[in-house]
């Protein structure tokens, strides 16, 4: 394969990893609580900007460790104040509320940090290329892949091996039963939300290093996350992961052959999947209602 194709596929995988990271957070919240968190992109941006503010004090690595949990804490506060009252109600309300939140987030970040792009400093040695033959293998991209893989792996491990994870998984299937079995569902939802927002914050820090940082960074990444969930399958986290990677690679390939359609191609994929298998590739039956 030519260098160009390889480059774009690799790039596509990286981008897909991002989409997957964000989409997984979204999916977690959606599956357990039935909430479409339109503000997810806003949390991503917040994570990135928090890191940006912290870097001069604790360096890039410090920010990478500290910013996502900080964002998650903010997420928990918002969940407690605003989203909790909406759980029993029509999903319409949570969608509207998070939609409004997204507006507020974007405006507030613009207010605090300015509307222009700001430079996001990544340690210099990460930015250099690892191989002269494959110039695109910059340290930063590989590093990102590793972090995303670690985060995703960590998530799946938590879900599979810890009690919290087991409760989340059970709650996704049948929250009422889980509640009758004595689990504090409110706390469960909050923690779940927190994990989801942590992923958004983490994605934000990583994305800023790759894409540059401006107030609209969240808004750009949220739609592909939606598509990743739809393509990969409603209710399935593995599906979301695969969906994210797939659309990333698809847009990477499109960049080679149909440059003007790079964004559109993910929607084409979505339409195709909906046509052939409305519940998504790995979606579960009965998730439609």
């Amino acid at each position: 394969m030519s260098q160009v194709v390889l480059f774009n596929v690799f790039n596509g995988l990286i981008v897909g990893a991002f989409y997957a990271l964000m989409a997984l957070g979204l999916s977690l919240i959606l599956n357990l609580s039935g909430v479409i968190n339109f503000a997810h992109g806003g949390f991503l941006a917040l994570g990135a900007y928090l890191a940006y503010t912290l870097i001069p004090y604790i360096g890039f690595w410090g920010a990478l460790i500290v910013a996502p949990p900080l964002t998650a804490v903010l997420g928990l506060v918002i969940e407690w104040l605003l989203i909790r009252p909406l759980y029993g109600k029509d999903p319409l309300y949570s969608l509207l509320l998070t939609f409004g939140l997204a507006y507020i987030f974007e405006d507030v970040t613009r207010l605090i940090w300015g509307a222009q792009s700001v430079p996001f400093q990544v340690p210099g040695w990460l930015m250099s290329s690892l191989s002269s033959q494959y110039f695109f293998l910059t340290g930063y991209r590989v590093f990102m892949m590793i972090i995303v893989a670690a985060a995703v792996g960590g998530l799946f491990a938590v879900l599979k091996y810890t009690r919290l994870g087991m409760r989340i998984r059970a709650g996704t299937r049948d929250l009422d039963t889980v509640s009758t079995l004595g689990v504090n569902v409110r706390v469960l939802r909050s923690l779940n939300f927190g994990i989801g927002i942590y992923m958004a914050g983490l994605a934000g820090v990583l994305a800023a290093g790759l894409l540059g940082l401006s107030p609209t960074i969240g808004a750009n990444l949220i739609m592909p996350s939606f598509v990743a969930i739809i393509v990969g399958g409603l209710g399935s986290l593995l599906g979301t992961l695969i969906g994210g990677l797939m659309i990333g690679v698809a847009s990477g390939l499109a960049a080679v052959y149909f440059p003007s359609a790079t964004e559109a191609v993910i929607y084409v994929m979505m339409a195709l999947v909906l046509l052939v298998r409305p519940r998504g590739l790995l979606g579960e039956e009965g998730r439609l209602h």
Partner: protein
Amino acid sequence: MLLFAPFWMNAIGGYTELATRIVVMGLAAMSLNFLLGFTGVLSFGHAAYFGLGAYGTAMAIKYWAVGSIPAIVLGVIVATIAAMIIGALIIKLRGVYFAMVTIAFGQVFYFIAFRWNAVTGGDDGLTGWRRLPINFGFAELDIVQNDRAFYYFALAIFAVCVAAMAVLLNSPFGRSLIAIRENERRARFLGVPIEFHVWLSFVISCLFVSAAGGLYALLNNFIDPRALRVDLSGNLVIMAVLGGMRSFWGPLIGAAIFVALQDYVSSQTQNWMSVIGLVFVLVVRFFPRGVLGMLRTGAKA
């Protein structure tokens, strides 16, 4: 009340164009509510059909120089066909997932309008055209220069669409939609063909919203991709909720409040986005039944 709007609008510090915009958005919000409030199905991507109606109208005038009314009709046809196809694709989904896909499809059209520079003018929008006077054969209605005349034109279209919606809602078809909203499973057991009815409601809703879109294009003599964006979809939903989802005229009231608020706030501050966002949050938290909803319960108590 609406008939004399241009006259009292100026008195309260508004202007005729604002009233026209309220009528257009009111029509859009009421069309959305056909689906949302009366069938119980949430579409968060209605801007797509609004925009298709708008672009259809604009392109018809720009490239084929048709009159205003045929242009709107063309826009409506384009949008309705799209709605029929997309509706068929997504009809099996419900609830959150349906909403998500409608968002996604909305964005598809946004991107098409954005990218297809040659035809749609891309981000700069489609210019170089304007609404033409309506020629009835025996008289000519100048809606180009005269704001007031255009207001009445928009009002006329509004009246026709709204009347049609009212007729539909009061028919057996409309009744079954409400049944679907209240309890889908029971409606299914009663023999109501759910999928077909929801699809039809979706298509009808998009049809009227595209008429609003056509009017919008004519109002501004300009159309750009922002009319297709999810922002507008969200705004339409909030208008419906703000005014009262369960009532017929609610969305119009919601539209009036929202459009007026938007107009006022954007002239006062740079941070109007936060205010609008705040409106969303406050309405959901404290006024989920909307203005008319609250008045109704107030009357009962």
